């Protein structure tokens, strides 16, 4: 793999003074596609971007996200939200807590048959018992206590977990339902973790 020939790169780089940002982007994508090996469940198609991923691959120098692009991202992703057919949005908060704690799933060394976690604590504060929480996302402490459990709130929480891009274009939060990371039942359980009055999040 180290003997990989680089004539294509050499040609491109020879004229690099004239290379534009777009050229670098294309060249970077080509380079990445040559430089990964598929392993386990992680095949090379994971390097292929969908429209949202491409629009959200932005450097600070690219400036603020265009309002129309942001609206487009949110609209297309909202259209992709699928609620459970039976209309039930709240599951078991205890199962939700386990999902929130678990960071496994979808990695090349993970068992593809085992359920994935949501890893919520990596980025969010939830139950007060868990001291080890991240701050990439907002605190979700007392989430249901302060917002209630109306159908609108339930639908929002379910949809936010299902496809966060529907509400915040280029968010750091994965699209757990749309991308098939969590199942319908798991999303219901995490929704319950946030909203159930008995959940430690609200106690």
């Amino acid at each position: 793999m180290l003997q990989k020939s680089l004539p294509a790169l050499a040609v491109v780089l020879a004229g690099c003074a004239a290379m534009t940002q777009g050229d670098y982007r294309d060249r970077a994508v080509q380079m990445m596609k040559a430089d990964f090996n598929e392993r386990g469940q992680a095949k090379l198609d994971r390097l292929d971007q969908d429209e949202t991923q491409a629009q959200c691959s932005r450097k600070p120098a690219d400036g603020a996200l265009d309002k129309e692009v942001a609206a487009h991202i949110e609209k297309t992703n909202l259209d992709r939200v699928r609620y459970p057919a039976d209309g039930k949005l709240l599951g078991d908060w205890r199962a939700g807590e386990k999902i929130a704690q678990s960071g496994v799933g979808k990695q090349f060394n993970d068992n593809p048959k085992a359920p994935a976690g949501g890893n919520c604590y990596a980025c969010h504060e939830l139950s007060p018992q868990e001291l080890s929480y991240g701050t990439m996302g907002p605190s979700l402490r007392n989430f249901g206590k302060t917002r209630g459990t109306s159908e609108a709130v339930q639908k929002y929480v379910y949809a936010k977990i299902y496809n966060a891009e529907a509400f915040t274009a280029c968010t750091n939060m994965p699209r757990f339902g749309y991308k098939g990371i969590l199942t319908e039942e798991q999303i219901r359980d995490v929704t319950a973790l946030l909203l159930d009055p008995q959940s430690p999040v609200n106690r």
Partner: protein
Amino acid sequence: MTKGFIGALAMLALGVGIARAQPDAGTLRGIEKYREALAEDNPAELWEARGAELWNARRGPKGASLAQCDLGKGPGVVKGAYAELPRYFADADRVMDLETRLVHCMVTLQGFSAAEVTRRPFGGPDHRSDFEALAAFVAAQSKGVKMNVSLDHPKERAAFLLGEQMFFYRGGPHDFACATCHGESNKRIRLQDLPNLTDAKDAQRAYTTWPGYRVSQGELRTMQWRLNDCFRQQRFPQLKFASDTSIALTMFLAHNANGGVFNAPAVKR
């Protein structure tokens, strides 16, 4: 989906944004004490010692040592070399990071095949990595030296700009890019501070402390390993060892850390 519902959603979304999680001061002080207690007597020294032996050992089909390996500051000059890597090497007509250069020297000086020496580049319970030992040894010879990575050569500049593109490239089932976790300041994942690798100060602090002894694994890990494992957690496929992508990203990170005083091998969680 009614207009009213969307409006309610927007308000809820705003409400969520108000209460930012504050790090628990007592917990963080405790963690700080833990890190201090481990900072001295770093087991990385065991790797440095083995790396020094490997560097000087006559090995390979040519029975040569690495003592004549040119890490960029002339054959055999190790002191300060790591603080200037990656760099362009005319003899290979390629930008190389430390590990790629070590492969080059193992091939050209010692007569090993690249495939052979890179078959299992990372160590584990049943396997020791020569690269991890050599990287610990070489990196330690740059302690106290300021990071000074050049972009003067067109290929160095190209590597940096390609690395920048890769850093912000989202993909995989989780939509993660390097920047997802390392593009903002003052964030934590669980209790670990996340360096903002686009910010000079954070980039300096992060880059100058790799390689590091990873206590969770009991292994000395290098920048090549760090990138490999970040991509695993990004849910990407497996990054090839010493690939151009790995070098470009390392160039982006190393150059962002310029001016920082090198201080590795360090201890890492």
